[in-house]
């Protein structure tokens, strides 16, 4: 056994045994008040060096000694080791301040673009008409204040002089066979330092039950904080602890620094991981998707560093758990998308009163727009096609999707299309609950149009849905518009038809005046009814509204003008023509402008045009 190199004080090659023994005994803490109160390594450089020299001397003589004087030497060594253990602990404790969190978070920029929005939704999907809620769409505040730690960055946790003292002590303890004590002390002090840092980083000790009971808003915040904290933990905290172990136990065999590292860090690492695991296990509910994806992406990012820091055999279980967490998060993401799809199918609120956009439509379309933002991740996670027909085979009226037409699309794209399909299916169901079929068609027209607009508005989404399907949807909008017009206006225009008005005979006297009067009366009544009813209905999209009104006008106005032109004479030649010809063409033109505005109109149309 060689004397330590850093022995500057003594020029003598070695100390006499008796002197060594004296030194050790002097510092036996049971021996004197002084020995108890003072710490060698705090006191004096010289004292420390002498002490170490003394230890070395005893060790050396122990290995050369005969059996007989072994006993006292062994005792002396034990005293020395006990002392060194205290000194070791003391040095560690003195330099164990929890690392300041400000110095922990770097200023490297965030990976996510600052325009990415975080979609915060109300809790469950709407379940009945009384509980219709506004859905909020808000920008997340975290992208601007997001300072991420993007790579391993080891810090010096303990100043170099202290490290060399620790090294020197560790060396003696290990060569005297007191390795376990050394590891124990090291582990307990450093572990409390790590725990302290954890608290500063806001890492909480939450059980799976705690997490299940949290409201989503609160949980979301915790996930965000956890992601930031986890990066710091793995890349800075754990990496630095590892470096520290390597430094202190550098002279020893390679496994020792590893044992100390695991002693320090295993518990905290598992505690950290438990949170992510708990999130991945929690109940599936649609609003969680995006945070789960954030967590997943952060974990993918972090895994290589976890593998790098925990690269030894004894940390197998940590790496295994990290991999398990990743696959659970992926599973959670998939399950949440499924749950979202199921929720759409289950959602059973009634249609909206005036045929406008249903909150479900808004929710779903906003949701899948956001899904397309996360396309990069989801395209890898979503691996199976949506199960479309067979699952619901017992059910007669089920949504259907012809997968054959959609060759070559990714599973993610198929799911997005499927989502639109089941949304439509749901909307169709809702529309059937309107008493008025015209309104039913209008409702479908509005909602499918909204879908189309949303798809067109997002290039990612449009790319995945594809223009073929988009054309189909647009066709449906047109079809619905046509159906609406038929449902409302056929009967009105029927009043203005030619047949049935002429009686046999000559040109002029061939018109049945009574029939004509009936016609005018019917037309007026019907038009008034339609006008009153449908003015309150809503077509939110301005362009669509305009187009629809123009389409109505194109049929209504010429028909009325022609009718008036041909038959007004007959009425005006009789009594009280004003009872039958209530409206001019201009009156009708103006009235059409009221349609789909959502405002109730006064009874008397005519006044406005005067």
């Amino acid at each position, binding site marked *: 056994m060689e004397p330590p190199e850093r022995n500057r004080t003594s020029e003598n090659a070695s100390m006499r045994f008796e002197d060594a023994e004296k030194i050790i005994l002097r510092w036996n803490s049971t021996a004197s008040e002084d020995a108890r109160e003072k710490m060698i390594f705090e006191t004096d450089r010289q004292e420390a060096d002498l002490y170490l020299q003394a230890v070395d001397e005893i060790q050396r003589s122990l290995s050369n000694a005969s*059996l007989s004087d072994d006993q006292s030497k062994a005792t002396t060594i034990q005293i020395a080791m*006990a002392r060194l253990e205290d000194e070791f602990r003391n040095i560690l404790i003195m330099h164990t301040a929890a690392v300041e969190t400000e110095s922990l978070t770097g200023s490297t920029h965030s990976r996510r673009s600052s325009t990415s929005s975080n979609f915060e939704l109300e809790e469950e999907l709407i379940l009945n008409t009384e509980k219709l809620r506004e859905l909020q769409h808000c920008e997340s505040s975290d992208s601007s204040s997001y300072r991420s730690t993007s790579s391993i960055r080891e810090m010096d946790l303990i100043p170099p002089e202290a490290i060399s003292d620790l090294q020197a002590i560790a060396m003696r303890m290990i060569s005297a066979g007191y390795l376990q004590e050394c590891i124990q002390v090291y582990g307990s002090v450093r572990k409390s330092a790590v725990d302290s840092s954890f608290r500063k980083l806001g890492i909480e000790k939450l059980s799976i039950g705690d997490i299940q009971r949290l409201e989503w808003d609160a949980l979301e915040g915790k996930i965000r904080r956890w992601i930031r904290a986890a990066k710091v933990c793995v890349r800075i905290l754990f990496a630095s602890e590892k470096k520290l172990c390597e430094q202190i136990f550098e002279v020893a065999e390679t496994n020792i620094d590893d044992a100390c590292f695991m002693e320090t860090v295993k518990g905290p690492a598992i505690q950290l991981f438990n949170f992510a695991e708990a999130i991945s296990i929690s109940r599936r509910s649609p609003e969680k998707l995006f945070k789960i994806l954030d967590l997943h992406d952060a974990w993918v990012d972090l895994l290589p560093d976890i593998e790098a820091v925990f690269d030894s055999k004894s940390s197998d279980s940590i790496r295994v758990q990290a991999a398990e967490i990743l696959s659970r998060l992926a599973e959670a993401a998939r399950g949440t998308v499924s749950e979202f799809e199921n929720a759409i199918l289950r959602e059973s609120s009634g249609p909206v009163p005036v045929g406008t956009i249903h909150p479900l439509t808004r929710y779903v379309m906003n949701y899948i727009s956001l899904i397309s933002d996360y396309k990069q991740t989801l395209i890898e996670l979503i691996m199976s096609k949506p199960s479309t027909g067979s699952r619901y085979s017992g059910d007669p009226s089920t949504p259907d999707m012809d997968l054959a037409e959609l060759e070559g699309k990714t599973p993610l794209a198929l799911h997005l299309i499927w989502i639109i399909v089941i949304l439509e299916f749901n909307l169709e169901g809702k529309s059937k609950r309107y008493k008025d079929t015209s309104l039913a068609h209008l409702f479908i027209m509005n909602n499918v149009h909204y879908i189309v607009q949303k798809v067109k508005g997002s290039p990612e989404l449009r790319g995945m849905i594809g223009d073929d399907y988009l054309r189909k949807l647009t066709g449906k909008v047109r079809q619905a518009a046509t159906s609406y017009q038929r449902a409302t206006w056929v009967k009105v225009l029927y009043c203005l038809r030619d047949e049935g008005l002429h009686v046999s005979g000559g040109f002029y006297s061939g018109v049945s005046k009574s029939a004509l009067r009936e016609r005018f009366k019917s037309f007026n009544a019907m038009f008034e009814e339609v006008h009153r009813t449908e003015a309150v209905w809503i077509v939110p999209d301005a362009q669509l509204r305009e187009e629809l009104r123009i389409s109505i006008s194109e049929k209504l106005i010429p028909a009325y003008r022609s009718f008036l032109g041909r038959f007004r004479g007959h009425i005006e030649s009789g009594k009280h023509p004003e009872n039958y010809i209530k409206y001019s063409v201009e009156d009708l033109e103006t009235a059409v402008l009221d349609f789909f505005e959502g405002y109730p109109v006064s009874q008397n149309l005519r006044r406005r045009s005067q």
Partner: protein
Amino acid sequence: MPATDYQGTSSAPFANIGRSIMSLRRDQVHVHSMEGSHDGAGHEVELEAFQKQVADMFQSLLAAAASASANDELLSLSWIRKLLDSFLSCQEEFRVLLYNKSQLLRPPMDRLIADFNERSVKALDVCNAIRDGIEQIRQWEKLLEIVLCALDNKNQRALGEGQFRRAKKALVDLAIGMLDDKDSGQTLANRNRSFGRNKDHHHRSVGHFRSLSWSVSRSWSAARQLQSIGSNLAAPRTNDIVASNGFAVPVYTMGSVLLFVMWTLVAAIPCQDRGLQVHFNIPRHFAWAAPLNTLHERILEESKKRERKNACGLLKEIYQMEKCSRLLSELADSVQFPLTEEKEVEVRQRVKELAQVCETIKEGLDPLERQVREVFHRIVRGRTEGLDSLGRGHNPE
């Protein structure tokens, strides 16, 4: 499947009994297709088989505990591993039993399964707590390694005061570390620089070591968690049994088995706020009721024994650690130097016993931890599958 990872040192055939019964039945009956309108047909066989498997499992465990072989003593590491092994096969059979059964989507099964899933999730926290406890035991074992290192006589040198002091130090730390949570409160208070110096024993800060190693908050309680798992666990009513074509019964059975296993783990392994006040009100007509109750009673008896009353865990090996270390401690206090021949022999004997305990613990803890983790995984998997199938139905989770 699971067998190779954590097979105990004995009784390989035991773990496969249940599995082979089920596969026998399966071959005979072929009932694992999608159920349409054939509810009830052919299920009695499966359901019976499951009940029998559970009964056999408990009987085996009881028998093992009563056997002369010291290995499988009640609450020994090896016995606990048997327990978990059988639990895992049970879970698997349960899963197979419920696979693809259309009953699951209808009342009352949808509600019963949802309840069962809730119970299972609560068991997850117990699994995590047990993992902590296992780590705790590892720490104690490491202290014992120091004792062994100190008193091991490999190089034939006479044991002197130094070695005994070293051993004593570790033994004192161990004694403190093994104090029940409530008692170690005072030691937690002294987290300052002089902690290492102000006691004669120079003990390491093992006391606060303990609470730091729990990965749950201070308010978490194993006792409460067990109560929660067992809440509203009652044998199914007749109309539920009929309405579910008998499937309500295995759900109840599995729930009871889950509760028992978690309870036993909490009894055996140290964890925060261990409490053993759980009642099993299992109707006697269940074949597994009697052996389960017997085991329950025997474990409770164990907990009331004078020498085990304040134990932080009923694991046999913990008791052995306590006993050995106490005896050694007394010995260390009583010896005069130089050692007499007699004393030397005694010391050697104690050390040998201690070495044996350490060996058993070292061998058994890692596999145990893996098993507990496997239980965790299976519960999660079962629940995910349950959630998936429920989601397809018409009930919110």
